[in-house]
């Protein structure tokens, strides 16, 4: 029984961090699905979102809800701006140029924030608090419950958006065949901007959930988080939304279980080993469609 309750607690720990990976991985997957770009600046959008929350709550004393909305707004705007300024001019260039630009943007954001706010971590006052739940011998913290609930809600919302709305249809069409979609009268720029906006808004939500459990914002917080979310996206099958979700949760659970058995030092190693194994054995990921090379 004691063993079961520990297992349950560790599973909750894994699902909580996995949910954050999943939200970030969704952003990676959507952007890749549309313009075949691995947007390595995506992790840093989370960092910006976290700093916005910090500024709003710690410096200006705004209400948590206002600061969350502000973070979503700023991140969305930033995501779209980056797309317009840095990626759009390179849309017809080789994909490698885009990738390098993405890495450049990532460095620019990290170092820019380090320059402005310093390298130290900023403490965000607790803004999501509530009673924790006791289930038998296990405790489920309030932030864990909120994180899981928000993630499930977002997943459902996103699925409806992509499957049922006109913009969702446009997104799917563009990801299937950009040229044909354009010929069918789909506005490419709007669709791509919308994808970036959506991904960045999800990143902002992820940053809020991240802060609810870790409470510190630092300039480099997005880099490892982003990389792990990238692994999650690849594991689930990059370009596939349910895949990103599944990948995130699997990565989170794997990390928690590795730490739980006392191998916490190997945590990052295990995550990247998963990446290598997936790329070797099943490059299209768990839920991805096998890639057909056009001849």
């Amino acid at each position, binding site marked *: 029984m004691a063993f079961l309750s520990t297992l349950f607690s560790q599973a909750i720990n894994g699902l909580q961090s996995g949910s954050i990976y999943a939200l970030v991985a969704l952003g990676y997957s959507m952007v890749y699905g549309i313009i075949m770009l691995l947007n390595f600046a995506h992790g840093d959008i989370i960092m910006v979102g976290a700093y916005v929350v910090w500024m709003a709550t710690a410096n200006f004393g705004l209400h948590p809800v206002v600061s969350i909305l502000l973070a979503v707004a700023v991140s969305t705007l930033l995501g779209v701006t980056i797309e317009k300024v840095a990626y759009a001019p390179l849309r017809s260039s080789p994909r490698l140029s885009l990738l390098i630009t993405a890495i450049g943007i990532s460095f620019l954001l990290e170092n820019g924030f380090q320059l402005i706010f310093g390298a130290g971590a900023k403490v965000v006052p607790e803004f999501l608090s509530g009673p924790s739940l006791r289930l038998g011998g296990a405790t489920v913290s309030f932030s864990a419950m909120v994180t899981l609930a928000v993630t499930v809600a977002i997943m459902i919302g996103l699925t409806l958006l992509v499957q049922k709305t006109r913009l969702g249809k446009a997104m799917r069409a563009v990801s299937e065949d950009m040229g044909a979609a354009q010929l069918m009268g789909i506005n490419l720029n709007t669709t791509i901007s919308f994808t970036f906006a959506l991904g960045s808004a999800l990143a902002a939500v992820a940053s809020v959930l991240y802060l609810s459990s870790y409470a510190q914002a630092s300039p480099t917080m997005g880099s490892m988080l982003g990389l792990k979310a990238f692994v999650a996206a690849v594991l689930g099958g990059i370009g596939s939304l349910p895949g990103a979700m599944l990948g995130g949760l699997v990565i989170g659970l794997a990390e928690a279980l590795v730490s739980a058995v006392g191998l916490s030092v190997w*945590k990052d190693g295990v995550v990247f080993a998963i990446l290598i194994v997936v790329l070797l054995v099943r490059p299209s990921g768990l839920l991805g469609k096998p890639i057909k090379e056009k001849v």
Partner: protein
Amino acid sequence: MKKFVCTALAVCMALSLAACGGSGSGSSAAGGSSAATGSSAAASTGEGGSIKVGLLANTSDANANYGNAVKNGAMLYINEVNAAGGVNGKQIEVVAYDDKGEATEAVTAFNRLLDDGVTAVIGSVLTGTTIAVADESYAVGMPQITASATAPGVTLLDPEDESSGIRENVFRACFIDPFQGEKMAEYAFEKMGVKTAAVIFETGNDYSEGLKNAFVEKCQELGVTVTNEEAYSTGDVDFKAQMTNIAKSAPDVVFSPNYYEDDGKIVTQARQAGYEGTFLGGDGWSGVGPYASAEDLEGTVYCSAYAGDETFESAYEAAYGEKVPNMFAPLGYDAAKLMLAALGAAEDQGLEAGSDEYKAAVIDALKATDGVEGVTGSYKFDEFNNPIKSAAMMQLQNGEEVFTEMF
């Protein structure tokens, strides 16, 4: 239009890079040429002559807040002594170089100090640079004292082997890493009646591992059961899995020999995982206040080299217009005090400053130090040239770090 925006952006980026480069080289140039004499009163032609002392600190790199604090602390004491007439009527002339926190720079700076003809060296600040300088100073028998390098290898020739012999000329004003671990284990056992303890430490961090090993060894010696030894790697933010394990064993205390940012997260997540016992830590906890809620931190005990000293703090503020930034400043002050006391002993023997006999006399005097009252405690050195002094026990009460007792 698109082209224009791109070009403008590129120019902005190039400019910002150039600005970075410019300020970087500017500061390093300033650092390199900072052979500042310590005091305007350091007139070597004065009646009693002067004694040249070298000061090495990293004052322009990423850890410059440590180096500047040590330098300011040391200069504060030296200026006080000079203003009061110097040592044996001689002014102390300080030759200060910036070692930029790099071992090679530190060795170069030390060689320049030799050319300048210094009699003793205060420095360096970081462990790596201090060991690099210690190798050189050992070869020439130069008295050296570091304010803040905590690794055993600073004075021990082979840090793994206590019988390997020591660098007789090298001393330090701070605790060594294992000392804090032992102190906390003793404190937990004797003062808190602890029977079970767990540890969480950062792998690959010498400070964290050094404290943790000493703590665990001492616990075994005292008969305290160590229930969990949990580890994490640098940069981790999620400790919930480890904390769930610890919460399950429910030890009396958790020893977390880490730095404040991590400590804050560890405490918060431990409470979320349902752990209700007390946290113990080393001096890395200093400044943890804002990083976790007062409620979660309540009762945490850590040891520190410095408990607060009003006279020192007001003197520091008057001299530099800022509050004492960290414990490095008082340690720098004490390092200077120890060195100048030893210089005084050599002066009393009527030796000529700069000669080998003089340096040997300074080293002997440092070794024989007994009861020099610094702002961080009363000094005496053990067989490994490490200070024997009690630690200040600090406790978190309502989010404030409160000094409780010397232990």
